[in-house]
């Protein structure tokens, strides 16, 4: 076993554990914190896969901005916990079963079918450097990039419209 694999399996265990923690925590705040941990480990995976720019964006945008937003809303609403409900008790076992089936199918597809994507050639030193990413973004992907900016603007306007209280209630 090489150091690479040890690192991978260790981090993978953390990521899965964090995901399960997010899934099973009764308290929503804990869930959010577990998710941050998960995102952080995924960011490390990005680094391992030679994507430093994406890893930084993951940490900054996901683990940072988005999760803070989550925490903020949880606190705001005071909705850390929910009363247990008797409704749709039958759905849980079916969901677990289907998830297991999906997992089996996925693993079968990844390892049972097709070639094992094991041989990974070493890449050039400037692969996925911020300069390369930036150059690509502003040349070939310029239009989607600009559209994304409009999307963000629209989302901003939409949020304001949704949150704003109707004037009649004032």
């Amino acid at each position: 076993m090489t150091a690479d694999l040890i690192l991978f399996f260790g981090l993978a265990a953390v990521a899965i554990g964090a995901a399960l923690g997010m899934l099973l925590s009764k308290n929503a705040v804990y869930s959010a914190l577990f998710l941050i941990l998960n995102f952080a480990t995924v960011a490390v995976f990005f680094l391992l896969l030679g994507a430093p720019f994406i890893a930084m964006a993951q940490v900054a945008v996901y683990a940072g901005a988005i999760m803070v937003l989550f925490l903020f809303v949880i606190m705001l609403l005071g909705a850390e916990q929910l009363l247990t409900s008797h409704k749709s008790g039958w759905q849980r076992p079916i969901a677990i079963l289907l998830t297991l089936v999906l997992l089996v199918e996925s693993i079968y597809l990844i390892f049972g079918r097709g070639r094992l994507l094991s041989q990974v050639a070493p890449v050039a030193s400037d692969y996925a450097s911020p300069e390369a990413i930036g150059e690509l973004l502003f040349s070939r992907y310029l239009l989607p990039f600009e559209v994304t900016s409009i999307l963000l603007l629209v989302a901003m306007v939409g949020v304001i419209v949704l949150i704003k209280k109707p004037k009649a209630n004032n």
Partner: protein
Amino acid sequence: MNYFDLVPWIVFLPVLGLLLNILIGKRLGERGSSLVAFLASGGAFVVSVLQWLSLSAHPEAHIVKFAEWINIGALQVPWAFRVDTLSVTMMLVVSGVGTLIHIYAAGYMHYDVRYKGDPAAYQRFFIYLNLFIAAMMILVSGDSYLMLFVGWEGVGLCSFLLIGFWFNKNPDGSSGMENSNAAKKAFIANRVGDLGLLLAMFAIFTLMGSLSFDTVFARAEFINPSYILAITLFMLIGVAGKSAQLPLYVWLPDAMAGPTPVSALIHAATMVTAGVYLVARSAPLYSLAPAAQTTVAVVGALTALFAATIAVGQNDIKKVLAYSTISQLGFMVAAVGLGAFVAGMFHLVTHAFFKALLFLGSGSVILALERAHHPIDGDHEQHHEEPKKGHAFDPQDMRIMGGLRKVIPTTYRVYLIGALALAGLPPLAGFFSKDEILTDALHANPLVYALLTAAAFLTAFYMGRQVLLVFFGEPRSHAAEEAVESPPIMTWPLIVLAGLSILGGLINFPGLHGLTNWLEHTLGHEFAHATEFNLTVALTSTLLALLAIYLAWTLYGREPLKAKAADPLAKRLGSLFTALQNKWWVDEFYGWLIIRPYQRFAAFLADVVDWRFWHDWVHDSLIARGFRGLAVFLANPVDLGVIDGLANGLATGARGLASSLSILQTGYVRNYALMVFFGVVSMLAYLIFFS
């Protein structure tokens, strides 16, 4: 310089004239509308003369294509005018005699419309007359059998319209349907003939792929002769219908119901000769079918003799002439049947002159008596009294005439010329043309010669009888005593026609052969050979004619008929004369043979088949009841049971299915997500296992 391009005007001038009379005829008045009609017809004559002059310089046939008409696949029939010596001969006769009759009719109809009590009909008469000229011109100038047929039907229509001109009257002037019945009789008899011509045309088109004369004649010799025989025999049926030959001649005597100018123009001079023209035109076809030629000749000869016998026994001045016309048409048909096309056409021309003269002369006689019977002076209107049937004064009955030569001398003189020409005495026109036919017949077919000679003898006899009865002896009625001579507008055309009847023989004078050479350009030397003058034949027929006239004089001239006395011939011939008077009972025979069975059959069809079987049984019992039963069946079990059940069942089923499916719509987003997830998993499984 030639005028061939003007030829369409022979049709369009009369059409123009009739349109003018239709549109503004009433405003033009009698003088105006008759002048318009005269100018239209006269214009056609002038154009025909121009064609003649052009053709004298260039005698080969000219075809003037006027318009496209039918253009369907192999059927190509343009509206083309054919100008050749044959058609121009007909054009000259039609428009020349037609124009003279127009002049005559302008005077005659002035009185006729007043005696019939309908002065407004004056314009209508000239409209029909111009229409007839146009149709006849189409007939003689057509370049194909179909164009000829258009004219053929057109003149048939005009004949129908003009026979039935006084359609609400009887021939004696009383109210009734006899005139229109005569018109219908003529029309139906002509339809029988037209069917034959149509069949001939169908056969021609099927076999030769064209209806145009030149093409048909060029291809005819390559066709099986038995087909040609069939075509020519079918054509003979058409000829028998139009030219009043046995057995379809019965319509022509009844056609005398029309005004006298009509009888002269249509039923003597022009239309009825269309059959002769057709045979002459189809000479190349007939020459390929000797059996058909013989049939035509025999039919013509039999008709000539048969009609001549009937003419002997008639008392009506116009009926005598009508049967005489049938007889003379028989001469022409026999001639063209024998292959003597020139002789036939020659007789056609001269006959047009003297028979038109005789008819117009008889019209003058009739009018003279009519005016004496109830005088009207000038345009002064008189209240018209409608005569009662059977008691009417009949100005056409020769038994009330007599001694007219003193009171109407002009009419007498021209009538005498016409009668002698018809009787065939030299040097009048009829002698030469009839003699040529007889000479040709002697060479070709002795039987036909014998029949025609007998007919010629009878012709001289009945004409002698007629002239003696009408103009000689003592007046047998008050009207005959005070008969009034016709005005100059009527007598001048008579004088012109009398001149033509005297000089007409020059057209094809023996030794000169003007007409023969003229027609040779069209018929070819083969069909237009010159007939040498035969002194034996000429002497025989002349002596026979003189004998017949002497016979007539012994019977009617030496001892003039007294008023209300029986016909002297009746004593001599006994029951035979009754048979002649009753026209050999042919009409009765046709009635017994065709009309009565037909009426019985019609009654059977109407009463038994239509009413009892079809209406009562099939409609009421079968269809109505069956339909009602079917409707009840369809309404109750089918509609209420099956169809409603189906529709309601579908609705109920859909509602049940919907309510059971609506359970799935829980409103819980997570349930929906589960379903989507299930779908994803299933699809993945499907892709794994089946691809």
